[in-house]
């Protein structure tokens, strides 16, 4: 199967052809995929080199002239390194952009911690007005990329990952969808965590919601799910554990509830190796998830 990132350049190249507002800003990463588009639209494909403060600053300038910048590099260098530019050049200036990251939390484990960004979504949560898409499949990535670019002058973050589910689901760039229904708890699987969550909850009496757009957080869908499945909620996120716990709490503010936030741990593993090994080390493989989910939900969850 191709990866979400394999889809990125072809999809956005087509958008460059279709929409004269679209511009692509790169920082030496992912430039090959845009070589043909750059020949067709030389002014609208810009590589600033290994300069990530300029990457965001230049995108803001493009937006202020009326263009729709799509900005891409690894998550660490897109959100974390130039965070003040994200806060000020986009946020404070009211300049819209689509930030599309690769490498996610640990897509390249052999690359080590410098290329891991489990905190990207949590960081964006300190800012106002960001839409965050976390596709779980290349087809969903394609849909959500188109959705992001078409979203006027909104500030949108699209988090692409190697981690993916076997099959795509229909996603609308807005709402959670219900994948399974039960009566003894709600599990929210974010993006590429869905397959592991479905395997982990096999035979458990739980509702599984699938979330690919996590900001704004679809609190209404969660609230509705708890009406039949009860108010014990488990979030399974492919980035920092607990990132959406506050959002889930807000969605359930009017009812007594419990929330368990599962995701990537804060502790630096200082390990290389393979993706699966990091998934397991953070307790995000199906077996660990089953243990933690059923432990939290208690005896009633088993059917």
């Amino acid at each position, binding site marked *: 199967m191709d990866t979400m990132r394999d889809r990125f350049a072809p999809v956005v190249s087509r958008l460059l052809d279709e929409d*004269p507002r679209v*511009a692509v*800003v790169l920082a030496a990463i992912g430039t090959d995929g845009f070589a043909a588009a750059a020949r067709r639209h030389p*002014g*609208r494909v*810009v590589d*600033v*080199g290994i*300069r990530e*403060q*300029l990457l*965001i*600053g*230049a*995108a*803001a*300038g*493009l*937006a*202020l*002239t*009326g*263009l729709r*910048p799509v900005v891409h590099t690894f998550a660490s260098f897109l959100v974390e390194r130039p965070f*003040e*530019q994200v806060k*000020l*050049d986009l946020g*404070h*200036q*009211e300049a819209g952009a689509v930030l599309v990251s690769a490498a996610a939390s640990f897509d390249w484990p052999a690359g080590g911690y410098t290329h891991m960004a489990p905190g990207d979504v949590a960081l964006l949560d300190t800012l106002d007005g960001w839409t965050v898409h976390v596709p779980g499949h290349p087809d969903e990535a394609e849909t959500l990329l188109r959705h992001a670019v078409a979203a006027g002058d909104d500030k949108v973050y699209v988090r692409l990952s190697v981690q993916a589910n076997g099959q795509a689901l229909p996603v609308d760039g807005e709402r959670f969808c219900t994948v399974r229904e039960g009566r003894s708890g709600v599990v929210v699987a974010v993006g590429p965590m869905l397959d592991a969550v479905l395997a982990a909850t096999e035979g458990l009496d739980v509702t599984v919601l699938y979330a690919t757009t996590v900001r704004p957080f679809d609190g209404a869908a969660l609230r509705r799910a708890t009406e039949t499945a009860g108010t014990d909620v488990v979030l399974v996120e492919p980035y920092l554990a607990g990132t959406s716990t506050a959002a889930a709490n807000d969605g359930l503010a009017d009812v007594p509830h419990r929330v368990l936030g599962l995701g990537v741990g804060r502790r630096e593993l200082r390990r290389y190796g393979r993706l699966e090994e990091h998934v397991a080390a953070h307790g995000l493989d199906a077996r660990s998830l089953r243990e933690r989910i059923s432990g939290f939900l208690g005896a009633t969850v088993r059917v």
Partner: protein
Amino acid sequence: MTDATQTYTSAHADLAGLMGLMTGDEKHGPAATSTLDVLWVLYDRVLRVSPEGGDDPGRDRFLLSKGHGPMAYYAVLAAKGFLPVEWLAGFGSYDSPLGHHPDRTLVPGAEIGSGSLGHGLPIAVGTALGLRAQGLDEPRVWTLVGDAELDEGSNHEAIAFAGPAGLDRLHTVVVDNSSATYARPGGIAARFEAAGWSTLTVDGRDHEALYAAFTAPHPGRPHVVVARVEPKSA
């Protein structure tokens, strides 16, 4: 001609009075006047901007990067009719659109908000790229930075990119009041020059010299004017 279409504009001699309407904090005081003559010459003779042309895609863009000490900026904007003179007295108060650092969403005529140093030049690069991409060949992009502001590394990402990218519509004016840390003589112009910019260094209080430097041709290259004023510490 009706009164409604008239815009009140002042002369350079009125700027001191306009600045006197504002009371900034001490820290921002000396920095404020260092930019006054540069701003005046730009707004009076160089920039093709007007209070009515706020959204005109063909307007020149002036990005005040050095947002510290914006009294001179507000005074010039008021003198040129972008904002009402009555606003000046409220400078820095809760209900005033005029803060100690400008906010583009509150100040008519301000292309960017600034305050945190090192943001204007990278945004100006993107603005120049955006205009070029849309075939808007007329508008020029200007940004004003301080010499100490150039200590911020983000500027050097922008300087290094803009020269080789041939962004000839991009202009930077560095107001040099010798406030940088670890500065070396001639270091400012040398760094721009090494990146392929056209450079001129002039007396930042001499209006004719500033005008000549601002309007000097620089085909194929971005242009920087280093405007030297009295040292901040003097």
